């Protein structure tokens, strides 16, 4: 305990230097900006800002880049709530209830709850990293391909629960998402799969392309279809901040979400993606009235948002302690550090103690800054909704186009996004929901990779998934969740069929 206090003291003394505070603020501001712009992800921005960090010493550079990263997470939730465009895979869940709240005139409350629960989760996650970072690394190493595959199966179970309407249609969307994830060059053999010979598809469909198509463009089309449905702020704006009653309702979801998110974030290979989905599922299952979910339930924003932010922070654990980046943004951080001659690895904690702990402390400071930046901004964001839609949609359109282009600097990506926009519009017309498709897509690629890796390593022994204890437990959990999710729907259907 004394050791922890000493470490944190070192960290805060590093992070509280004027220069580092300023860098943290710059990072948070840029991150928020980037997150709020649909389509422009943190990856392109961090890559572009790398040269700027040459002039700064490595701790400051890392603090700034980390600020961009979690600033973008905050900002991503803002667009998810206001205009139903998830900036990141992790804010897909926020669109479900957050945007519904906005439509009911509670945009301010939704944004406030998102900011507050993210801050709480960020605080807890900082302490978790400081206290348990090193020992938790071992947990990550327990996860081989077999365990990962089972975790992904569990994730698919969660995806079914996301469904607002028909369960079978949700399952169909998950499968289509999985199918889309197989497009592109096969990892093991290098063969092209279902790419139609298009170079833009040779590395598969980019998440941003799919998400901007299904949510960004298709959302515009939906709104143009029925002008009365987009009456986001035709009514009163309502309160800007959550009431005491709202806060009370959120305590449980936030605590559970933080725990889930923090635990999943530690896993390498982007386990953090699952956090918000898991949290949403849990809240929907234990709620007194699950029917409210999908129609603006505040718990459906608070839980996933805290899981999102907790996972985003604990994702630093594999990077800082093993030197292994769990996702693309973290890989960029590794690059930033290597440019400065600090190669992240198991010894960073001891060899670069002030960098490590300074970074940990700056995370908390950054989260505080984000709260301070974001709470006053809520009023501004909500007022933005008053811009007439005839001007709003061309603006969203141009931001999406530029954002998509900047992901890979490829014009073909913009055209592909248009294709998925049309596809998403057709899905909407047929009564399908896009969120399960996106989750299936995110999980699909990992799921196939891990299945094939596990089978290659075990020389084709299918029993490996049940013989390894962690994997077996995860599969059992997945089975339970599926039963819980599907059974009531089946029963309801049968009853309905009998009635008719």
């Amino acid at each position, binding site marked *: 305990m004394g050791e922890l206090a000493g470490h944190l003291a070192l960290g805060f003394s590093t992070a509280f230097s004027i220069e580092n505070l300023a860098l943290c603020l710059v990072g948070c501001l*840029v991150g928020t900006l*980037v997150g709020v712009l649909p389509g422009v992800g943190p990856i392109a921005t961090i890559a*572009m800002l790398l040269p700027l960090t040459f002039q700064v010493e490595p701790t400051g550079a890392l603090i700034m880049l980390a600020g961009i990263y979690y600033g973008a997470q905050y900002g991503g939730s803002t667009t998810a709530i206001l205009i139903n465009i998830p900036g990141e895979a992790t804010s897909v869940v926020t669109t479900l209830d957050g945007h519904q709240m906005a439509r009911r005139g509670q945009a301010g409350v939704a944004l406030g709850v998102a900011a507050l629960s993210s801050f709480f989760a960020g605080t807890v996650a900082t302490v978790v990293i400081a206290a348990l970072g090193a020992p938790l690394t071992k947990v990550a190493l327990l996860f081989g391909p077999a365990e990962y595959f089972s975790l992904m199966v569990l994730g698919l179970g969660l995806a079914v629960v996301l469904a607002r309407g028909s369960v079978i249609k949700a399952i169909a969307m998950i499968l289509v998402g999985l199918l889309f994830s197989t497009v592109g060059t096969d990892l093991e053999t290098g063969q092209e799969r279902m790419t139609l010979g298009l170079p833009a598809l040779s590395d598969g469909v980019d998440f941003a392309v799919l998400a901007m198509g299904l949510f960004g463009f298709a959302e515009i089309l939906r709104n143009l*279809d029925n002008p009365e449905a987009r009456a986001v702020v035709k009514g009163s704006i309502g309160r800007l901040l959550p009431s005491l009653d709202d806060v009370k309702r959120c305590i449980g979801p936030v605590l559970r979400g933080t725990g889930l998110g923090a635990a999943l974030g530690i896993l390498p290979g982007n386990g953090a993606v699952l956090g918000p989905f898991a949290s949403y599922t849990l809240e929907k299952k234990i709620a007194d009235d699950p029917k409210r979910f999908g129609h603006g339930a505040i718990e459906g924003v608070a839980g996933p948002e805290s899981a999102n932010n907790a996972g985003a922070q604990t994702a630093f654990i594999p990077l800082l302690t093993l030197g292994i980046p769990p996702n693309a943004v973290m890989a960029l951080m590794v690059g930033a550090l290597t440019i400065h001659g600090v190669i992240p690895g198991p010894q960073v904690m001891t060899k670069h103690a002030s960098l490590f702990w300074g970074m940990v402390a700056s995370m908390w400071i950054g989260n505080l800054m984000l709260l301070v930046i974001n709470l006053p901004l809520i009023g501004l964001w909500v007022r933005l909704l008053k811009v007439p839609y005839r001007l709003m949609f061309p603006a969203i359109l141009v*931001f999406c186009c530029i954002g998509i282009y900047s992901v890979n600097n490829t014009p073909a990506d913009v055209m592909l996004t248009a294709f998925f*926009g049309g596809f998403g519009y057709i899905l909407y017309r047929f009564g399908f929901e896009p969120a399960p498709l996106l989750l299936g897509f995110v999980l699909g690629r990992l799921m196939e990779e891990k299945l094939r890796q596990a089978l290659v390593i075990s020389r084709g022994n299918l029993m490996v998934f049940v013989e390894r204890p962690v994997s077996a437990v995860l599969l059992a959990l997945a089975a339970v969740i599926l039963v819980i999710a599907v059974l009531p729907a089946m029963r309801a259907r049968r009853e309905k069929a009998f009635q008719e």
Partner: protein
Amino acid sequence: MIKSPQDAAAGAFLLAIAGIALWLGADLPVGTVRQLGPGMFPRVLAILVGVVGVMIVIDAFLQSGEGLERWPLRAPLFILGAAIAFGFAVRPLGLIVAAPLVMLVGAFASPETRIREVLIFGGVMTVFCVGLFKYALGLPIPVAPWLIGY
């Protein structure tokens, strides 16, 4: 007969997706359990999508549901067309052409659009976007290669 036209069409749409996927992936080897081939996942998934599609079609005969409305074509045509135009314009002509182009073409998607308003707004947004994306964020996006060389 068909109690839910929307579901019937939805199921048929899934069947079409499954069919296209099976056709596109037809020449991919399935492999063995020990070494799954590149064709295994796509094929299994395509079949599952097809099965669910059939189930939804069957449902459409049993349970009543929503009908199919007329599909407006104006919005999809202009919105998606605008994005495609952006894709063609951005590298050769740069942001100062592509950005107003996408907004102008896209604006025709809505009957509420007022041309003069969009022209002014498009100009303002273009200046804003160039400043924001090129200069503030430093993204490597062409501004006007034919005019200033980058």
